[in-house]
């Protein structure tokens, strides 16, 4: 029988918690420390975000990467959102006995498929098709990356959507049914209004996954540093930039720019967490 004094035990459990929090803060600290020379040179962190990338003239702004990240992530949401909403309606609302369950199983399994496999299949299956269809460039472009990314983030959304649909009290739906509402009406007038916060939270989390993913954009988006003009242009994301530049000379300013990318990603993640938590907790409070 171990007899650890109560106070000591609490400290024993507290210590690893403090370590984990220190790591979370430390990650940002490291970015800040190592990116500092560039930030000082660029004058202002915000300046750096808005500057373009022209190493020849001493400009190491990460604006093109921010545009790349945002455009790829938002386009993937455009593809994935209706698809996910449709799938969740099929699972929770239409509730087809066999296919509904099967779909839920497939979606859950999808969360376990390695990202690099989506990238790999994308390179050899999707990119050549895009190239053939649009007859432009190599096929490595925003569109290819967004399509594959949409597949990656769909499970996040579907699982979140179905969960919030399922959490709408049954009695609400029954009340609507008693008034003669059809399944579709029940969904539109009862379920969706009750579950919209959950839907929005799912959207935010999926957006976070899309912004934070490295491999798919790195393998499929072509990685050119430019402000893309169309979805068929090549683009580089913040995450890919880190992966590509990290092999450069450690002391160079070019290298330091990846810490600015890291910091931007960290701050974006924090914003998303704040947004999702705000929505979700208010949601919980209402129930």
């Amino acid at each position, binding site marked *: 029988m*171990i007899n650890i004094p*109560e106070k000591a*035990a*609490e400290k*024993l*459990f*507290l210590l*690893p*918690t403090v370590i*984990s929090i220190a790591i*979370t803060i430390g*990650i940002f600290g490291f970015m800040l420390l190592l990116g500092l020379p560039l930030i000082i040179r660029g004058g202002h962190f915000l300046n750096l975000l808005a500057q373009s990338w022209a190493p020849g003239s001493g400009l190491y702004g990460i604006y093109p990467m921010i545009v790349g990240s945002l455009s790829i992530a938002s386009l993937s949401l455009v593809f994935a959102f*209706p*698809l*996910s*909403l*449709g*799938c969740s*309606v*099929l*699972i929770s*609302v*239409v509730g087809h006995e066999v296919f509904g369950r099967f*779909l839920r199983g*497939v*979606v*859950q*399994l999808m969360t376990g498929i*390695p*990202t*690099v*496999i*989506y990238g*790999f299949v994308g*390179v*050899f299956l999707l990119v050549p098709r895009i190239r053939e269809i649009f007859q432009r460039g190599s096929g490595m472009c925003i569109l290819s990356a967004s399509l594959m990314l949409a*597949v990656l983030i769909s499970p*996040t959304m579907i*699982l979140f959507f179905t*969960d919030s649909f399922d959490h709408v009290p049954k009695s609400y739906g029954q009340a609507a049914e008693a008034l003669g509402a059809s*399944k*579709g*009406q029940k*969904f539109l007038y009862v379920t969706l209004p009750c579950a919209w916060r959950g839907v929005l*939270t799912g959207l935010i989390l999926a957006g976070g996954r899309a912004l*934070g*993913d*490295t*491999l798919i954009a790195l*393998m499929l988006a072509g990685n050119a540093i430019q402000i893309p003009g169309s979805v068929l242009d090549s683009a580089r994301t913040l*995450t890919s930039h*880190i*992966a590509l530049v*990290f092999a450069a000379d450690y002391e160079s300013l070019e290298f330091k720019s990846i*810490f600015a990318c*890291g910091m931007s*990603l*960290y701050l974006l*993640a924090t914003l998303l967490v704040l947004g999702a938590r705000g929505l*979700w907790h208010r949601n919980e409070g209402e129930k």
Partner: protein
Amino acid sequence: MNRLGEKLLIAFSWISGITLVSVVFFIVGHLIFKGIRAINLKLIFGETRPLDALLLRKQVFHGLFPAMMGTFLLVVLSVGLAAPVGLASGIYLAEYAQGKVRKIVNFFFDILATIPSIVIGLTGFSVAVFLHQHYSKQIYPCLLISSLSLSFLVLPYIIRSTQVSLESLPLNTRLTALALGGTRVQNILYVLVPQSLSGILSGLILAIGRCAEDTAVIMLTGVVATAGLPRSVLAPYEALPFYIYYISSEYSSPEELLTGYGASIILLIICMTLFLFAFIVKRRIIWQTFYHL
């Protein structure tokens, strides 16, 4: 909403469902169709006899064995490092933290769970460079640095699964040992943790899966295309997901590309098996581990 709208909604949901399922089948089918030919012992062991390779008597060239072993070591080290810290933090969060402290701790763990993996990889890399410059010239990005970084990556999974499974225990169970004169620690160690073991276990399995599939962290912290088996934790190493990434851009012959397909199938099988295992152990926890807010 009229009958037509109703029909359109249902038709749309069916189209979405069928589209998603076909895409997944297309992706997996493509891998299997193209890569099934590559699946044999030669893919893993090359020209070396499997027994010699497994007993580490001979090096394996042109085979996936070093990459698989690298992934295996990576998983063992990372989860080994993250598990004690994650378990203790999860217990603290579920059983001790209250009010404001609890909110703040939860917030930080949500951030840790949302930080893109490449940022964690970059931090690992920076730590390695820092140690190289200030402590020992022997330290480069290596297996140990990768494992440390990956353990940060999977820490939230372990914390959340522990926390959620402890918190979901019914009040009745929580009070049993306390009513019998047990202290709080005794209650945790003898009743609460044993009762939530399946949830904790399934969180660990998910963490293993995450370590096995991650590419972004390891590509910044020491994985290389050819290294053979790592000689120590301070040496560079190979890993399956990085091999797949590498082949996709650097393959020089159809045969080499074929090994890429083979590696993908093997990685997919490993991850699916782990996932199914976690799923069977505890269904509900998977979902809550991913999306605890």
